[in-house]
């Protein structure tokens, strides 16, 4: 029993204490967090733009077509580009997108974390766009009619009436995207980024111990996800309360 415990302690020492290998884990965790947070920010900005173009086209396309002019042509081209973007991004694996970004498109950028932020940001933008769009679409059409009948233009109706309601619908799903993204960034090692997963893998390579570092990595992800899920439940509860009001 003590022998088993001693060997466990020894493995632990070699995996995390020796050469300060725990610092790798910490650095990896830090990179995972940085990539996730900044990628989500890019994703939200991109998502807003794409969702705005697509919803505008869906809701105003017919009316604008009648009026004609360059605005409609721009909108139509924009809508086409957005659809193409969504199809390509959602139709290919994120690892492949990451590698294409690192080895082809951004070949001159040596900072892997930056490349990962951009790649995951673009990827997440496609999903966030659809989250926003479905949020906007979930609002009763009568709300738009009410806004427009009072004299608000389309954009004012969106800003004052639709988006404040859509945000409530969207918040839990958006938060869920954060949880998904944290786990997805675990493939960042493919482009030489030392994220949490890569750190565990590096320890495995040095120590020839697979069990301890990999389970440690899994445990860290799990704890983060559990905490975030808790927060998500609290958000959902608050929103439900404000609905009942």
């Amino acid at each position: 029993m003590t022998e088993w415990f001693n060997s466990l302690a020894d493995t632990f020492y070699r995996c995390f204490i020796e050469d300060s290998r725990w610092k790798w884990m910490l650095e990896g965790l830090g990179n995972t967090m940085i990539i996730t947070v900044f990628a989500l920010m890019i994703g939200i900005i991109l998502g807003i733009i794409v969702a705005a173009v697509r919803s505008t086209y869906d809701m105003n396309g017919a009316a604008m077509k009648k009026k004609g002019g360059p605005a409609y042509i721009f909108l139509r081209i924009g809508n086409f580009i957005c659809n193409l973007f969504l199809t390509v991004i959602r139709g290919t694996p994120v690892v492949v997108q990451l590698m294409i970004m690192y080895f082809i498109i951004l070949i001159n950028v040596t900072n892997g974390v930056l490349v990962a932020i951009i790649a995951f940001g673009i990827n997440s933008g496609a999903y966030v766009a659809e989250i926003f769009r479905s949020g906007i679409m979930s609002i009763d059409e009568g709300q738009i009619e009410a806004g427009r009948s009072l004299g608000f233009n389309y954009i004012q109706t969106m800003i004052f009436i639709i988006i404040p309601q859509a945000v409530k619908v969207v918040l839990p799903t958006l938060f869920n995207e954060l949880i998904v993204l944290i786990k997805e960034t675990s493939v960042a090692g493919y482009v030489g980024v030392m994220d949490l997963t890569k750190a565990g893998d590096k320890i495995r390579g040095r120590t020839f111990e697979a069990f301890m570092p990999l389970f440690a990595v899994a445990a860290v992800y799990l704890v983060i996800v559990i905490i975030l899920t808790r927060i998500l439940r609290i958000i959902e509860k608050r929103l439900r309360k404000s609905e009942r009001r």
Partner: protein
Amino acid sequence: MNDALIQVRDLKKYYDNGRIKALDGVDIDIRKGEVVVIIGPSGCGKSTFLKSLNLLEMPTEGKIIFEGVDINDSSVNVNIHRQKMGMVFQHFNLFPHKTVLGNITLAPTKLKGISKEKGRERAMELLRMVHLEDKADAYPAQLSGGQKQRIAIARALAMDPDVMLFDEPTSALDPEMVGEVLDIMKELARGGMTMIVVTHEMGFAKEVGSRVIFFDGGQIREENTPQEFFAHPKDPRLQDFLSKVLI
């Protein structure tokens, strides 16, 4: 002819590339202060007609001359004209994220640059008119259907419109709440407001209607004073319709 507030000329609205003719050539003049009541069977184009008047539905063809301007012309900024056309919907469409006061003051403060205090004062005036001054800080979810509709009327009135469009304002209400909404509308009518009202409330039509119009198949089939309209309907389909509606 020249005192017409709204002149509708050959208004058409087709769906599905012309397979559905929701409006099939409507001509009508609406004078200032008139209360025009529209009745007709389900799907005959009553809602489409009202929504075309403020271009919530884009007409396929035709003119809508409102205060001398053809608002169906593509060069016109329709948002300006919509401010002068209040609309009340069957399902109220109050803004759920705003209080009653917020619902009423949103458009005047954002669109007319009216100050918060002025907007509030006017809103309280309107709330007194619809007998709901105690609900100023309530949210729509806390109101009954009848109360919601009265707030919706107040919200539309807050823009000081020149005409009010009502699309079956009492159809979604429990019977005991219909009266309170109709009372507000009658008061409004007596106050001289120009109103176009789609409704099945024949009592309302008889009491305050200046004209009653029968819609069928996207066209105006009959048009008369309430007395004549109900006493001597000419169109056979109107006779049939009235025999079903007036029990």
